[in-house]
């Protein structure tokens, strides 16, 4: 398959992930649309191109791991895992219903394919660092991918994890920063700015840093991950400059953290994603 064909495949997958994310959150009608939709393209690249996984054997020993440290983006992970075949996608539509296996925040004890439990921001990256170390010590070839938010990077524990990962030279760890510029109370720049930038911070902590100008462009993400995999002796941070709510017509204009639109808005939003999915498929 040519790279061009592969990129088309990943764009189709990203559009499908967006559609299924909307259907998943739309099932109850409210949830973390913004930070889920900004991640769809990165999820498509990781699961569609790079990760060594077996949906029929989620605990496969030499698998690659993915940790959604920004745990509220659970729905985009559930959509992705469903599309990949860990379970029928309709299962994910039980999001947040009683006794569900699909809670708001990702939970390793509930959902096949979820490797670590997150939800208290700033913890998942530390867990991912521990997993990367544990796998390395046990001689596994596994790579650990972890996604954090730019708002999440307010947490000091993110930087404790960053210093540990660099100190122990965890080059089997890749951190994707969903730099969507928004946190719950508003723009990151207004709420808690990041000094010289999140990339500059990771650089100061001894990481290889790759700025991805458009973090919603699958080809740019694809090239950046390839470069991360090549890097030895240090972990890599990919700064994905994304748009919060990307592709959700009611959330993208406001960049809202969570959304509870009307039933009609949901119908329009899902329809728009369906149309977008069909349009991307036809682009070949």
């Amino acid at each position: 398959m040519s790279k061009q064909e592969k990129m088309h495949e990943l764009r189709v997958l990203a559009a499908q992930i967006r559609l299924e994310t909307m259907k998943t959150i739309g099932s109850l009608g409210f949830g973390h649309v913004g930070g889920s939709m900004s991640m769809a393209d990165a999820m498509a690249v990781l699961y569609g191109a790079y990760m060594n996984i077996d949906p029929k054997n989620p605990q496969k020993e030499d698998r690659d791991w993915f940790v959604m440290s920004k745990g509220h983006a659970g729905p985009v992970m559930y959509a992705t895992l469903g599309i990949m075949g860990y379970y029928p996608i309709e299962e994910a539509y039980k999001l947040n219903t009683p006794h569900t296996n699909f809670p708001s925040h990702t939970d390793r004890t509930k959902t096949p394919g979820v490797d670590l439990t997150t939800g208290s921001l700033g913890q998942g990256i530390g867990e991912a660092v521990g997993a990367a170390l544990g796998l390395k010590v046990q001689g596994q070839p596994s790579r650990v991918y972890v996604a954090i938010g730019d708002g999440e990077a307010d947490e000091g524990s993110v930087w404790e994890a960053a210093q540990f990962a660099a100190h122990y030279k965890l080059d089997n760890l890749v951190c994707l920063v969903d730099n969507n510029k928004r946190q719950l109370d508003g723009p990151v720049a207004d709420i808690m700015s990041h000094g010289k930038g999140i990339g500059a911070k990771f650089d100061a902590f001894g990481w290889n840093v790759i700025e991805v100008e458009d973090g919603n462009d699958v080809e740019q993400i694809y090239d950046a991950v390839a470069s991360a995999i090549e890097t030895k002796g240090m972990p890599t941070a990919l700064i994905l400059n994304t748009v919060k709510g990307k592709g959700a017509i009611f959330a993208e204009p406001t960049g809202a953290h969570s959304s509870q639109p009307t039933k009609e808005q949901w119908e329009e939003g899902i329809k728009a994603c369906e149309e977008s999915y069909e349009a991307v498929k036809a682009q070949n």
Partner: protein
Amino acid sequence: MSFTLIANHESDKRANRDAYVAAMQEMMRENSKVCHIDCDLMNCINTGKLLKEFPDRTYNAGIAEQNAMAVAGGMAATGMIPFVHSFGIFVSRRAFDQAFLACAYSGLNVNVIGSDPGVTAAYNGGTHMPFEDCGLYMNIPGAVVIDPADYAATYALTKQIAAADGIAYMRLVRKTVKTIYGDGSEFEIGKGITLKDGADVTLIASGIMVDEALKAEEALAAKGISARVIDMHTWKPLDEELIIKAAKETGAIVTCENHQVGTGLGSAIANVLAKNAPTPIEMVGVQDRFGQVGAQAFLAEEYNLLAADIVAAAEKVLVRK
């Protein structure tokens, strides 16, 4: 379970921390999954020995306890059996959210060692004096919480928590403590040990308070009062059966702990008694106060953690029997 009782009120010649290190050395030799994570306090508990023998499985997380705990959770998810150590205050208060979520809620086997419990923090003072560490961990569903009495207990229970599922928190006195048990004594998580039988009152103690309770038993015997003494090394899961039996047979209970009574052993035992066998109870321990700096002997007196305080509490509870 078999044990030998020494209880001569003399200090063990070995530092208590070495019991932990010895147990870890043996486990790390036998099982390549066992590992130790420290937080810039290796020199305080001699885990440099582990680093020397197992450089690939002994980690220093630096002064970053929250991350150390999250890393432990991640490592446990890959099948490793991590132990995390720092002072009791840091692995409880400081890293509690990580212990709760990244380890316990995640269903992972992580073993937490908190050194310098209660008044043994001595000259580090009130800022470093955990009177609430066990109480915090007891809030976690399914957690195992342990306050071992001496070298033999620390050695044996270190191995037990490695084998137990879920999160375990164990206190560790760094220096020498009074010998209660002979080497080779057996311990089981969740099973209290009756050290002395008695008919009039039961003294239930843990950690450094076990020796005080044994001294109190002797003082009470001299006054014609027959006291039963139980080492309740495991605070959670609590040995309810043994407590109820003691309450029914002796009719009066005194709890003895190097911890806040309101969130610790005393309260947990009162809870069992209220539900199963309402019995007069007195609680020797810290009464809703912060720690402070000083020699351990001064602090034990200041917070009323001595045998004389246990005797007074026993006499008080007997009036209500």
